[in-house]
């Protein structure tokens, strides 16, 4: 999958391009046209993770990527009508990436559904699993799918669940005795920074790690 921006300069696409250059993957193109868009509702590092996933999804399909500048999470559902009504070709699929944060998953999905209805978007079918829902939607004469992905892992003991939870889980699997006290770090982002160098002290494992 190749990603093209609908705005420049746009932080997610610049972040993806930066990481693409560093790790020698090629996932961004300057322009394109598509029936699908990805809406990054939180920001970084969700954009970077998505960029890497795009590379691994392979293929040459073009998909637009947007990050509404001033709104986050569920509020992005208020502006999807702009994408539906103004973009050509007609948008058929929207993938929305959203952090769980402190909310209960069911509450998020309920709030999303209520928000869609408030925006006169009806849901004709719903399927999915724990953190991913696919809604078949209708707005006036437009039929489209919203694929809603909620980032975070319940098994990671943090106050706010974000995409970084997956990194922590990876660290737990990678470093045998790693038991993060992530609440001490006031969220996983700091931990992410500490994990960035293999010689950093992480949960007192640094000496063992060096060996």
């Amino acid at each position, binding site marked *: 999958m190749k990603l093209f921006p609908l705005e420049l300069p*746009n932080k997610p696409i610049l972040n993806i391009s930066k990481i693409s250059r560093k790790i020698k993957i090629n996932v961004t193109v300057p322009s394109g046209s598509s029936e699908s868009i990805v809406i990054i509702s939180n920001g970084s590092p969700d954009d970077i993770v998505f960029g890497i996933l795009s590379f691994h999804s392979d293929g040459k399909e073009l998909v637009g990527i*947007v990050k509404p500048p001033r709104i986050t999470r569920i509020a992005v559902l208020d502006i999807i009508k702009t994408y539906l009504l*103004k973009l050509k070709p007609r948008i058929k699929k929207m993938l929305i990436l959203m952090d769980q944060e402190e909310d209960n998953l069911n509450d998020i999905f309920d709030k999303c559904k209520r928000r869609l209805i408030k925006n006169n978007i009806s849901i004709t079918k719903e399927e999915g699993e724990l953190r991913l829902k696919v809604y078949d939607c209708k707005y006036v004469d437009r039929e489209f799918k919203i694929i809603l992905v909620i980032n975070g892992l319940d098994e990671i003991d943090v106050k706010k669940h974000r995409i970084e939870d997956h990194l922590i889980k990876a660290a737990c699997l990678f470093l045998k005795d790693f038991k993060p006290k992530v609440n001490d770090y006031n969220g996983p982002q700091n931990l992410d920074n500490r994990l960035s160098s293999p010689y950093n002290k992480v949960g007192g494992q640094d000496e063992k790690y060096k060996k």
Partner: protein
Amino acid sequence: MINRIKIKNLKGIKEGELDLFPLTILLGSNNSGKTTILEALFLASNPFRKVPYFDKDKNLLAVEVLQLMHETLKAEGFAFLLHRYTAQEAEIDCNVNSENYILKFIKYYGKVYVNSNRKIPQEKIDIRGKGIVPSIGYLSLFNNELHIHFDLFLVDNSLLISPNLIKFGYNYLEKNWASIINMGVCRKVAEESSTLSNESYKDITIEPFLGGKLSIYAYLEDGTRIRLGDLGEGIQSYIITRILYEVEGPSIVLWDDVESHFNPKILFKISNWFGDLLDEGKQIVLTTHSLEAARIIGEINEEKAGIYLINLDKNILKTKKITLEEIEEFKEAGIDVRVADSMLL
């Protein structure tokens, strides 16, 4: 005022049309046809009229100015006017007060004959397959030879401004300084330009520089002088454009890449100047890549402005009129109309 323009087979535009406003702002990516629209409007007045640009000891004609703008290819002749160089005929159709004024460029045996549908004295050319065709002049396809039969205005006169033309405008001012200085516009332009700079200009003069060659100077309040060419490019462009406008007195101002060399302060000043021109009944058509420029100029002159997003799809002009509110709405949704043009047109 030109209400509508239709273009066929002119340069990169195979076909296209556009409604024009008192102030029309054309936004688009590179190679989207913006400059060709301005050039069509510029030619519509008469390709053979003299315009205030000077190069190599001669006052240029409108069509020669376009040739100069595309000089990078170092190609002689006027084949560049015809779509893909091979179209048999190009057409510019301007609607003015419900009348259509059509200018045709007809290729025939190494020449491009220029024909107008206006009732004016024209030469009669016998073109095989078309019969007798009236012509106001011709252009050679292969060299810079041209022949003029009629050089008066066919529609309202227009002035084309482009960053590429500023030096030729400067040359024109230098060569015609004696008449320009007597018009009394230099002091007014100098004083207005002071509001854009940290220096206070009182007048614009022409005097010998070191070595004796004449140069145009901005004359400062303290009696010192700075050569116009040594001022920042933005101030230079502004001063030259303003004087050229006063000299030419066009009904239509065509400005390519209006944001070029200008910071928002100068853009703001120009926007207000445009407001004055619009109040006088003038028409303005601009191209820009800058949303900031479109917003500043469009917002100040909102009632008279129309903003278009344009692009070419297989050489067919595609346009979408957008409002400033829509630009804001798109911005809120993370969409930049210039970047997402392929999904908006």
